[in-house]
């Protein structure tokens, strides 16, 4: 968290007096294809009636961070207003051959790879400078000990940011949300299916608890 962000947090109660407290920026982070845009769209649709952006099965569909401001989420008697930031999936490598294998033209694949690298760098800059809290998504059919998960959650913890961990894709046959909960016991893990909308109420409860005042 930047020095400015720390200062802003420290004085947030003072701004409250004047009604100027800004909504917290909550970033949706995770590896490519973990379901971040699907979740962002579902949250935005549930609370604003509109989706945020395109989603798709090919990795790196989101190559620019997208923000929806002033999303007010209510759970029981709690209410929190946040800005949702859907970020590009973070990886340590981007290979255009992956897109060619999926049937993409070589030139288009090269351009997509370049945009993906720019998007990942942008996601890391958001995390360093502009994000107040994180919804971290993992695919529960995948190994939770992927290095990108341990690296990103380590970075998030080092910034003392509140975080909610989601074990997504529980609608799939080989999903194992317990694997994720066991790998990261210091976080509350919510098993979800962003695609089917399973357990969304649990997510809203966690958002209200973690990111509310």
């Amino acid at each position: 968290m930047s020095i400015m962000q720390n200062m802003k947090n420290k004085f947030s109660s003072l701004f409250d007096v004047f009604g100027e407290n800004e909504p917290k920026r909550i970033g949706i982070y995770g590896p490519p294809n973990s379901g971040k845009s699907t979740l962002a769209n579902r949250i935005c649709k549930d609370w604003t009636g509109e989706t945020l952006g395109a989603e798709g099965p090919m990795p790196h569909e989101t190559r620019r961070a997208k923000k929806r401001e002033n999303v007010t989420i209510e759970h029981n008697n709690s209410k929190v207003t946040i800005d949702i930031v859907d970020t590009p999936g973070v990886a340590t490598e981007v290979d255009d051959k992956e897109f060619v294998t999926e049937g993409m033209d070589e030139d288009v694949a090269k351009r997509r790879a370049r945009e993906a690298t720019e998007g990942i760098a942008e996601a890391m800059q958001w995390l360093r400078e502009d994000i107040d809290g994180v919804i971290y998504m993992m695919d529960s059919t995948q190994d939770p000990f992927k290095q990108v998960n341990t690296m990103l959650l380590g970075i998030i913890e080092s910034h003392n940011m509140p975080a909610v961990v989601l074990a997504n894709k529980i609608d799939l046959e080989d999903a194992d949300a317990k694997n994720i909960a066991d790998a990261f016991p210091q976080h509350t893990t919510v098993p979800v299916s962003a695609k089917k909308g399973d357990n969304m109420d649990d997510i809203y409860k966690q958002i209200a608890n973690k990111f509310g005042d």
Partner: protein
Amino acid sequence: MSEKITQEDGIRIDLMRDSKISGMGKTEKIRYIIDHVRDGYILILESGLDPSEHSLLIEKTMAEIDQDTFTGVEVESYPDGSKDTDKGLLGRVFNRNQSNTPKKNLTVIGPADRMKTLHKDETHISALLNTS
């Protein structure tokens, strides 16, 4: 600059004592790592990277990617075996010691097109190196 290692040359693995890179600043350390990995080296760091260095590594790697010559890095370190939830991930991955200084775990970093991780758990990292 490091000497470029081609796939015809074979695989070069450098084991780095902490003393080799601990005196470097973060930017210098990440530059050193990326320059070597870009040139085909596989580096084994006795003591790994802290969270801010991981963040810098991802950003700088993305800036260096060129689809014709360098597609990124493969990096792996042990998660700490402790199940002590009070330590947090930072404590578990970086295994903080009693003085609360991060004690970072051994880390392997190599070019993504030559090294693929096959398996990782709390006691074992297995990687396949591509020599073809």
